[in-house]
């Protein structure tokens, strides 16, 4: 199966007062149609920037991208229009991602209006169909976002993303702001939609337990770089990178039996502004040794399992 999305050495730097901030620094991956790639990392690791750069909401500093067999690194205006109809985004915050002065119907219909391919009556019908498919009752059509709870708002965001019938959706922490019981409803909705429409997801989150549920492959990012990528089950079964290990052990498990010892990280987080060539996790890593100040290469330790740590085989 050919890859739907292919990303090579993607870079996104931001100019700041004190130097270049390396938000995304040399990311490679390819994603098959109908699959879900989970991107995990803590705040500031560049996972949201990665998603926005792929969607051309931000301009890439370097690297190549191709989508559906076509190069999309520097699309022309008209190409970008077509591209955005195939690639969409669902945002984290269902409060700030909806225009407070637009009704539910207006928000969902906006992409169709801009596309301008349907007559008005069809647009209204399509909007209702979209609302129905994300589980929003028709009576909310004229409601405003502030009148609805977080779960329903997130359904609006999903309906808006689906309105142009995209193939690929970047989900930027879509459930982080929701309560547990609502979060489960939205995750299930997203899984259902993926099955029905054959969607491909890039699911960006800081929550490893959520990502395990929804992903086929998981990429762990640290300060703009990929430190480990593996099929979901394998990442949890055979964790290789010291950062992934620490991240996994830090998640409080809801249960009182079989507690594992937490790996506590010490040391300051390396600044993403003009970072050195070595491993960026070094300052907090308890296995840090001399070889860590050299650039780390991505090594395939088993099929589909990549890790960027030169001593990953030696640590337990």
């Amino acid at each position, binding site marked *: 199966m050919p890859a739907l999305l292919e990303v090579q050495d993607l870079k996104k730097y931001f100019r700041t007062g004190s130097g270049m901030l390396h938000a995304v620094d040399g990311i490679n991956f390819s994603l098959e149609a109908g699959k879900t790639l989970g991107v995990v990392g803590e705040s500031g690791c560049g996972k949201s920037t990665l998603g926005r750069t792929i969607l051309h909401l931000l301009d890439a500093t370097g690297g190549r991208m191709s989508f559906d067999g076509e190069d999309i690194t520097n699309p022309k205006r008209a190409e970008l229009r077509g591209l955005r109809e195939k690639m969409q985004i669902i945002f984290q915050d269902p409060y700030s991602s909806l225009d407070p002065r637009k009704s539910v119907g207006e928000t969902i219909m906006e992409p169709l209006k801009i596309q301008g391919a349907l007559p008005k009556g069809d647009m209204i019908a399509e909007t209702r169909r979209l609302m129905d498919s994300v589980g929003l009752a028709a009576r909310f059509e004229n409601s405003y976002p502030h009148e609805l709870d977080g779960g329903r708002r997130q359904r609006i965001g999903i309906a808006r993303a689906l309105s142009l019938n995209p193939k690929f959706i970047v989900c930027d922490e879509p459930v982080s702001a929701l*309560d547990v019981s609502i979060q489960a409803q939205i995750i*299930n909705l997203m899984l259902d939609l993926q099955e029905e429409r054959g969607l491909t997801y890039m699911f960006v989150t800081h929550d490893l337990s959520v990502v395990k549920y929804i992903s086929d492959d998981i990429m762990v990012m640290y300060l703009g770089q990929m430190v480990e990528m593996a099929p979901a089950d394998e990442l949890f079964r055979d964790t290789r990178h010291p950062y992934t290990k620490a991240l996994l052990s830090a998640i409080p498990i*809801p249960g009182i039996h079989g507690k594992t010892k937490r790996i506590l990280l010490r040391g300051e987080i390396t600044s993403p502004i003009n970072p050195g060539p070595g491993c960026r996790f070094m300052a907090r890593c308890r296995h840090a040794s001399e070889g860590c100040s050299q650039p780390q290469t991505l090594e395939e330790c088993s099929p589909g399992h990549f890790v960027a740590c030169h001593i990953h085989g030696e640590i337990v």
Partner: protein
Amino acid sequence: MEEQGNLLEIRDLAVEYHTDEATIYAVNHIGLTVKKGETIGLVGETGAGKTSIARSILGILPMPPAKIVSGEILYRGNELLRLPEREMRKIRGNKIAMIFQDPMTALNPIETVGFQIAETIRQHDSVSQVEANRRACDMLEMVGIAMGRFGDFPHQFSGGMKQRVVIAMALACNPELLLADEPTTALDVTIQAQVLEMMQSLRERLETSVMLITHDLGVVSEFCDSVAVVYAGEIVERGTVEDIFDRPGHPYTLGLFGSLPRLDATERRLKPIKGRMPDPTNVPEGCRFCDRCPRAEDRCSKSPPAESEIAPGHAVKCFFAPQR
């Protein structure tokens, strides 16, 4: 006998918010005790009334619109709700301290962190500036921040460090009860692990009782001795951590566990609770969970179930609670 170990006792507390159009029933006649040295977790979703409970204890509910319509809060036998503000001020911060979710808003951006901690100490103990500074340094050390950062400003700290400073401030006067309102929600997991570990060791050292308000069952299971599950302004289940995690009795508690994505799970689908929390301005007459409950019967929507103790210390507010 039992009464003696109770540091804090809440009886029949009810809080309402009155606005022009509607009355929000935020806390609905709840009872709760915190024993000395105990850590109790208050678990529930947004809008369940957890924060209103904590604010009532500290007497910092915004009144109006809030109104305490019934109940009493006994702290070491003293009724806090009838205490004059002057007396309350001596307890607040000194005996009972609170940590808020957002460390950014709790710190003054134009004063050094050391000064802010020292100020808190001086407000409650009449000590000299030098003495207060010395104790502030000790506090910083205790939460794992180098003394050399005494003169730094809040913006020079990362989020996790700021939350530690806030904790240092809250613990500066050696309070007997610490109310922690989602203290780690805004933090990354690796930083959360550090902060929780630190709070754990401080609690053991200082013997502070803690009321931890959170929506994260994982944090509760790692940090708390007992748990109260809050739903739509009511405590639907309370008991020890073992009671709640091994023998959950209320359908809502069960539903919460079903909704939770777990690292150790194998199935591909979560089992969410259907529907959503009732509108707090228009709560059902019977059990507040009945619209979402898989076991609901006729009687559930007619009258609210009473709390029944299914094992010593393990109480469930449900008609289907297994009787002892």
